[in-house]
């Protein structure tokens, strides 16, 4: 990995498992001998509001928050939240976005609409979009909560950590009886990313 700081912004909606994904990511970083910091806020915003987690890794990390407009990867658990975070993405950065659509109650009253095609909007702005049907994949694996490891699997293709490191991070942080299915979800994400890049 180069000496530059790598910045990953993870966004989603409260309750989607954003925090576990950022936990796994920073764990993998320190297992690889890097300095790492991550930052997020807890409390009221977690009740169905926007959740963001900043993860930074490199030789020496100062700020736990990513400088605005400098995320190498934005990992979004929800279509519109990916669009909301687009201004954090660095010019050559990658947007990895789940096709999950979570329409908030506020969009039911006419004042605000949920965009028809947030992923299309993203693609208008940057060619570096990988849209993942993570909900369907997770449900096929038997648990909607696997969305986070699937997405992380996709992101892992753009980070230079060894496969064993990721697996060790998952074994360390995921509850024992969910380890196998999470490893499977992670591997599926990785495979999908390989396809997306060559395509």
């Amino acid at each position, binding site marked *: 990995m180069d000496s530059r700081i790598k910045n990953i912004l993870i966004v989603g*909606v*409260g*309750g989607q498992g954003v925090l576990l994904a950022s936990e796994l990511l*920073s*764990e993998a970083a*320190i297992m690889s001998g890097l*300095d*790492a*910091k*991550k*930052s*997020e*806020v*807890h*409390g*009221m*915003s*977690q*009740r*169905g*509001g*926007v959740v963001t987690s900043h993860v930074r890794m490199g030789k020496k*990390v*100062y*700020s*736990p*928050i*990513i*400088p*605005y*407009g*400098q995320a190498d990867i934005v990992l979004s658990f929800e279509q*519109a*939240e990916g*669009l*909301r975070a*687009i*201004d*954090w993405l*660095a*010019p050559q*950065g990658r947007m990895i976005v789940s096709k999950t659509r*979570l*329409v*908030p*109650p*506020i*969009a*039911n*009253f006419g004042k*605000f*609409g*949920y*965009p028809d095609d947030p992923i299309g*909007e993203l693609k208008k*702005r*940057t060619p570096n979009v990988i849209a993942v049907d993570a909900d369907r994949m997770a*449900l096929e694996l*038997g648990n*909607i909560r696997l969305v986070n490891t699937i997405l992380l699997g996709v992101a892992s293709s753009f980070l230079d950590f060894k496969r064993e490191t990721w697996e060790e991070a998952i074994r360390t942080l995921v509850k024992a009886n969910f380890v196998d299915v999470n490893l499977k979800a992670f591997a599926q994400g990785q495979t999908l990313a390989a396809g997306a890049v060559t395509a």
Partner: protein
Amino acid sequence: MKKLLSGNEAAARGAYEAGVKLAAAYPGTPSTEILENIAEHYPSIYAEWSPNEKVAFEVGIGGSMGGGRTLVAMKHVGVNVAADPLMTFAYTGVNAGFVLISADDPAMHSSQNEQDNRYLAKFAQIPCLEPSDSQESKDMVKLALDMSEQFDTPVMLRMTTRVSHSKGIVDLCEPTEAPRGKFDRDVHKYVMLPAHARVRHGKVLERMAKLAEYAETSPLNRVETFGTKLGIITGGISYQYVKEIIPEVDVFKIGVSFPLPLKKIRQFVETHERVLVVEELEPFYEEIIRAAGMTTVEGKIYFGREGELSPYRVAMALHQAGYLEKPVGAGYIPAELFPRPPVLCPGCPHRGLFAALKKLRLTVTGDIGCYTLGTLEPLESLHTCICMGASIGNAIGMEKVNGSDQGIVAVLGDSTFLHSGLTGLLDAVYNKSNITVIIADNRVTAMTGGQQHPATGFTLMGEKTKAVDFVELAKALGVESVRTVDPLDYEASVAAIDEEVNRPGPSVIVTTRPCALMPQRIMSTPYEVILDECTGCSLCFRLGCPAIYPSKELNKRGKPKAEIDPTLCTGCTLCAQVCKPEAIVLTQPAGKIK
């Protein structure tokens, strides 16, 4: 050994390594995880959730007086509640070391104000330390306890959301054994009669003079030199942002922020062409530095007093001050999007309560908790929120001024009522107020992540204990009409509230239904909409449930019908109860999603 820890986890670890014997707190974002971690990982420390911060602080004073090292933790506004004992404990001083962690919330991620508690340390005349990352959070807890014993004073460790909730690598050490002392009777020190307190006030001032000398030589206040003409004075999380933006600038890094090392700062100021102060929220350092005659030092005119700083804000301010190019900022055009404010969860019992209050169009004084979200569209049935327990007093005052013809209701949660609602309710009885108090009892401190409280039947350390009975408690305070209702029974809730509001004298309704999320996620078979039966009337939308979304199918007037996301629906039945055409039904087994 190195470990990735949040500031809060690191502070808990620091308490363990420093031989702390007692820790007490009331949960409050961003401080909550400190005590949770102590209870979970370090069972050698007695740890408790107290009913409120004042009690936590007083328990802590007792622990220190008794000779055990003590930590108390609370959010910034919690220190207001504990300010009474704090101000006088500052006079008596300690026996064993005492550290107060104040976790401030710049930008109010989960708070009602963004007060800067460094001023409370100054107000109480106790030293204040400011960590800037997890490692320092751990180290400074230990150091604060040493300072506390050396200078006979409580010490404030002032953290902020970004320090408490950011993770970084921390070096772990072995715990040191701090001997457990005993209480030595010394009424001149511990009984603050006026005659004793006058003497102690003098001691406080003597202590502050010694602490000022200590601050001058403390390695926590350090200068990082690169030979630049610009010098920056900074501390806390702001230090990290400065280092991020200009790693090689001369920095005066403050660790002891009260009292400030003014001699050392003066030397720094005199040896730099220009000096800027970078600190979040109030101009705390800046005021003290300028008041000491260093009037060329600037800060707030560039950095602002509101919200959190960030690498971007610091870069922008340094640009405005004439250093640095304009920061690059966004690489892509931001999108104009709907807001996504926090909402009550699917299945939340408070939803039924607020739907009923909305139906009755009552004036509702509110309080601090998840249910504060009842103020937002579409429920819009909570009309005030000031601080913990304020709903009852607010309702009483409003009723005395406006009368109760329109019906005045105070809503507060179970934990909030036990925190500081009891005295308010006592006032309602004593001063013959005609209000209805609703205790929204979801049997957990929900907003902060599901902590125990005196009515849950369990302690922080996981022991079974006596659970307060709200009905008996309200009766004992003298309320004659006390009843319970299930908030997810819509008709019953409307009827109960209507009846109590129209009854003369104070009354109490306890809405009883556990939180849908904590301690366990409650999921039953989801409900579904029969689209052919749905008229698109939007009554279910008006419950503001995240599981209900507009269908692509429209009604005759072109309005969307409703659908239910089966992965979110908890089967609480509330929407089915309000659906006039009875189009919402229990999902049939074939469509069941596990």
